[in-house]
């Protein structure tokens, strides 16, 4: 048997996780002293876990002020305005292009179709990345507010 007693850190970790090296387990099996120490830590942890949660001696809800300040709504408002403007502009341009296709098709003469496709894919990609970022920020805020 490994004759060296477990150090305090090993005792604490083992009492929390129950995981340790095989040599430590072997020592523990044969050492009453270390067993007592581990049991003491386990007992302590269970006492803390089971301890009664203190209760506030007043109703905290009554402290909520009548006029509540908003939580950073300006940031998200700005972002949504920006995207609204962007999509509005894209929509208008597309509608204009469809209506006035006859007058503007000269712009695209001479540009090979694959260049148009690449341009479109790049633009859509960028837009998607931006949208994903906006969605992630929204999720992050929601998580923070829900205290998940």
């Amino acid at each position, binding site marked *: 048997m490994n004759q060296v007693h477990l150090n305090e850190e090993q005792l604490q970790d083992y009492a929390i996780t129950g995981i340790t090296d095989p040599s430590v387990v072997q020592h523990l099996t044969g050492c009453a002293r270390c067993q007592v120490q581990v049991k003491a830590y386990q007992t302590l942890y269970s006492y803390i876990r089971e301890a009664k949660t*203190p209760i506030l001696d007043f109703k905290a809800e009554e402290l909520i002020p009548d006029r509540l300040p908003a939580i950073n709504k300006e940031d998200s408002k700005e972002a949504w305005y920006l995207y609204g403007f962007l999509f509005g502009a894209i929509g208008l341009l597309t509608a204009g292009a469809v209506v006035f296709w006859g007058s503007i098709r000269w712009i695209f003469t001479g540009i090979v179709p694959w260049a148009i496709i690449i341009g479109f894919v790049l633009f859509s990609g960028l837009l998607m990345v931006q949208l994903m970022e906006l969605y992630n920020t929204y999720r992050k805020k929601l998580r*923070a507010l829900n205290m998940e």
Partner: protein
Amino acid sequence: MDGDRHAATLLVRRTEKLVAQIVFKMLGNHPDRKDLTQDIYLKTFRYLPRFRFQCKLSTWVAQISYTTCLDHLQKYRLELITISTGDELSLGNTCSQEISGDIPDASQLLSIKERSEILEKLSTTLPPVYRTLITLFHKEELSVEEIRDITGLPVGTVKNYLFRARKVLKESLLNHYSKEDL
């Protein structure tokens, strides 16, 4: 506006347990405890627009609770983190190798109330910051990183304080049971 009120009520309901834990552990039976808790919630609502979503809202409220208590204790120059050497030494000496090893069996017979009382008694040897850290980690099951966010202490310091606090409490527990057994 009704939605905001509902959200604020939810915020209070979801955080009051954590706030109570921090305030009770930091201040114990200090006469200013109630006023300070009220102050924490007033600050929470006042500073809500400054919340930057860098962490969970409950962590942010816990941060306010911790710093408010810390400021208060510092104002009264109370000992925050030092475990008196005398205590540690005397407790260290009672690390009785002769203890029979039936602590858990004996404690199984105790009610939760009795166990809470024993823990309360043992915790008096700990400074407020240690008591709070132990509760946040073992009772509220927060991670070391979350505790770092709440207290502003580096992860290494949090781990070190937890280690020392557990050791002192364990020695006190062994001491308590050896006395009981005698």
